[in-house]
């Protein structure tokens, strides 16, 4: 799932906290996916999810960040070793004004591909499933037509200054990166632990999910959310046209609730996003792997995601869970019997049931899964 939604979530909290929160989320996700290669700043220091560690981000790692920040300059990409070095600096050190700045040497294929792999892996976050949940929250973040983001660091900024002067935000971010001491910095850092904590706890036990939602709502409402004129830079004609089509498509979108026995809260899926049972099944697997496997982000092993998905798949196709739906008549049916189009026409809600509860359906579930496999 695309990590940018993380950034979006951060936007709901403040521009500077994007920088801070994403940094901490970065640590957490690195831990979650166990992939350190993409950490260009060598932030593999955050190797465990730990509140003390997170808050220490504000002190130790901030310094690391700052030092690395001043170190990073354009370098000679071809000269870097192609191995997966945790401290791989794609941009080698050097002075800003040195010439030549960026001679593009023909690089070894290995470098390019590791670069690419690095980039790709850099986006696999352990939070992919929690990211799904943000799409709902996103709905409440972007209620107006104009794109909203925080131009300023702290919530105390006035709307006018947020709208116009982006300089405070730049200054804020620059402050963080270049270790210029200022009062703003203190404010920035303060926000990090609490937000990061919320993120973490949501990931681990999911119970704070609703808290997160409400706290997010609370913080977003009073926070100075400036509507920036003319952003994003899209022709008004296009914006207006898409708005109309979106509204039309909204009616077409088919969101249904999905519950799972034992999960503390429900999810929603848009059935129009899928065209086969397989796709729906995979999506649900991703969504609910958290609850089945246990705590996200508690392991450091690579390929954790794959483990959980296949395990859940087995669970769903095996004997522990079955996927059922409530149809227009209010009956609970096994998913998969009828053609897809017919299914989405009649499906009112979904439920991932324990097979033990779905006694009458279980044998057919086994058959169905055998056929599918």
């Amino acid at each position: 799932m695309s990590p940018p939604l993380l950034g979006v979530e951060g936007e709901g909290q403040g521009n500077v906290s994007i920088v801070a929160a994403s940094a901490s989320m970065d640590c957490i996700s690195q831990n979650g996916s166990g992939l350190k290669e993409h950490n260009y700043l060598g932030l593999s220091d955050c190797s465990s999810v730990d509140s003390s560690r997170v808050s220490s981000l504000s002190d130790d790692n901030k310094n690391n960040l700052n030092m690395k920040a001043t170190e990073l300059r354009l370098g000679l990409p071809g000269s870097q070793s192609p191995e997966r070095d945790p401290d791989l600096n794609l941009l080698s050190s050097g002075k800003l004004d040195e010439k030549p700045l960026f001679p593009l040497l023909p690089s070894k294929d290995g470098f390019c591909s590791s670069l690419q792999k690095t980039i790709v892996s850099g986006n696999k976050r352990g939070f992919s499933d929690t990211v799904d949940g943000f799409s709902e929250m996103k709905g409440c973040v972007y209620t107006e037509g104009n794109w909203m983001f925080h131009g300023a660091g702290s919530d105390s900024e006035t709307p006018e200054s947020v709208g116009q002067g982006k300089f405070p935000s730049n200054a804020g971010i620059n402050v963080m990166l270049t270790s210029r001491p200022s009062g703003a910095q203190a404010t920035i850092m303060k926000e990090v632990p609490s937000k990061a904590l919320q993120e973490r706890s949501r990931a681990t036990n999911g119970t704070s999910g609703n808290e997160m939602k409400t706290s997010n709502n609370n913080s977003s409402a009073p926070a100075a959310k400036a509507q920036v004129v003319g952003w994003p830079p899209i022709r008004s004609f296009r914006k207006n046209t898409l708005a109309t089509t979106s509204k039309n498509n909204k009616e077409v979108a088919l969101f249904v609730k999905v519950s799972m026995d034992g999960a503390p809260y429900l999810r929603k899926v848009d059935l129009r996003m899928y065209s086969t049972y397989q796709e729906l099944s995979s999506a649900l697997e991703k969504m609910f792997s958290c609850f089945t496997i246990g705590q996200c982000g508690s392991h450091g092993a690579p390929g954790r995601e794959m483990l959980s998905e296949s395990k859940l798949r087995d669970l769903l196709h095996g004997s522990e869970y079955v996927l059922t739906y409530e149809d227009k008549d209010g009956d609970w049916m096994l998913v998969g019997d009828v053609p897809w189009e017919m299914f989405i026409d009649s499906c009112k809600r979904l439920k991932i049931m324990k097979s033990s509860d779905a006694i009458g359906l279980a044998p057919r579930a086994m058959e169905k899964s055998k056929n599918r496999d």
Partner: protein
Amino acid sequence: MNYFPEEVLEHVFDFLTSDRDRNAVSLVCQSWYRVFIGNCYAISAERLIARFPRVRSLTLKGKPHFADFNLVPHDWGGFVYPWIETMAKSGLNLEELRLKRMVVSDDSLELLSRSFVNFKSLVLVSCEGFTTDGLAAIASNCRFLRELDLQENEVEDRRGQWLSCFPDSCTSLVSLNFACLKGEVNLVALERLVTRCCNLRSLRLNHAVPLDTLQKILVQAPHLVDLGIGSYVHDPDSETYHKLKSAIQKCTSVRSLSGFLEVAPRCLAAIYQICLNLTSLNLSYAAGIHGTELIKLIRHCGRLQRLWILDCIGDKGLGVVASTCKELQELRVFPSDLYGVGHAAVTEEGLVAISAGCPKLNSLLYFCHQMTNAALITVAKNCPNFTRFRLCTLNPTKPDPVTMQPLDDGFGAIVQSCKGLRRLSLTGLLTDQVFLYIGMYAEQLEMLSVAFAGDSDEGMLYVLNGCKKLKKLEIRDSPFGNVALLTDVGKYETMRSLWMSSCEVTLEGCKTVAKLMPRLNVEIINESEQVEVEASPDDRQKVEKMYLYRTLVGPRRDAPDFVWTL
């Protein structure tokens, strides 16, 4: 040169591709007949005609580019009427008119349609001010009309029957594009029009044209090269749909496809046949196609050179594009999720995949949630042929999320690698450093768009000093002030225009430029409730919006109250 027949001259001048050369030639050659005016206020219609009395094709651009994003108030200017009036009075033999970001009234369309007997081609892009009545005038009166091309205009629907106004004798249409119209059209008139215009090669319908009409049209016009589908909703089990399928199969010439303003994804199978030959595909308004349907469609388009899509294609979808569309030259990815519906978006991953799979890529517009330096560096390496590179991170000051660094180095790589880069738009967290790179390496750069970037005047100065071919510079919400503005005012006469809004420039700075450079118009847009000019506005006050441009004809006389020409 007057003894050369015009056709030969035409051919000769086609080889003059640089504006400078063309400009030079036009000074001596009065037979010049195709004129491009990038800023309608740089010259007057009278002087144009005096210099090019035989002009037959005119292209005019009005409002500054940032007007597209609501940064320019409604009645700022850019009226085409005076141009048409003057040309009409002088008896010009105008055949083609192309307008971009201009205000076009129904009166001007009416006058246009009546004044030029041989008028053949009208292209309106991002214009406003007219209604379907104006279109009716064009349809009724332009007897030899070949092209009516309306792209993304705001047109008021008057519920007239403008399409029916094409007389039965009109058989000359080659290109008709009314996709941007919001209202209904007379479907019978449309079918009849298509039937009698055997030379029709380009047809783009609006959302009001249903699938069964499309089917009938395609039967009549199987030689279409460019097709824009309006509404594509039907029951795939119906006879109409089957008829459509067979009609489409006969349309073997279609190379460009667009529209799908309303779409039932299950009907898409019918067009897979066309996809095989497509070189251009625009699905940027097809919000109803996403997920697997979209990807399935793309998989059929192996010959695409131009692709415009919405970001709901996702990074994975872009991966499919990368592996399928090896000939891709131009890619535009627009944001779909303006209203929080929750579709997938794209990140740097998708762009890197594209760059790896499509080495011929030379033009990019990419809206994404995030970008990294590493990705940009890779893209620069994979695609050194960029001439247009426009990147927009939806949060305009977002740093590289992996390293937390500004995106200076990434864009630096782009300008260094892409030696032919002519147009660049930047977003993300950016310091003065990126402008240093641009000044150093972007030797061919003609247009630069800056938003929420830079730290100090140095940034802007790097660009002004370094980019020798710079024509248009537009800056918003960046900390550039009077020092940057005033250091080299002579530079602005070598450029078409400079836009600065929400920067640090003060009224005094702008006044200084105006004083030093009489051949520039320095316009200030002040929309706030302010005291009148006479009541001495503080020169130290920052200017909201400044737009300056070189001109041969001094301050314009049609400026509204809120525009002060200094």
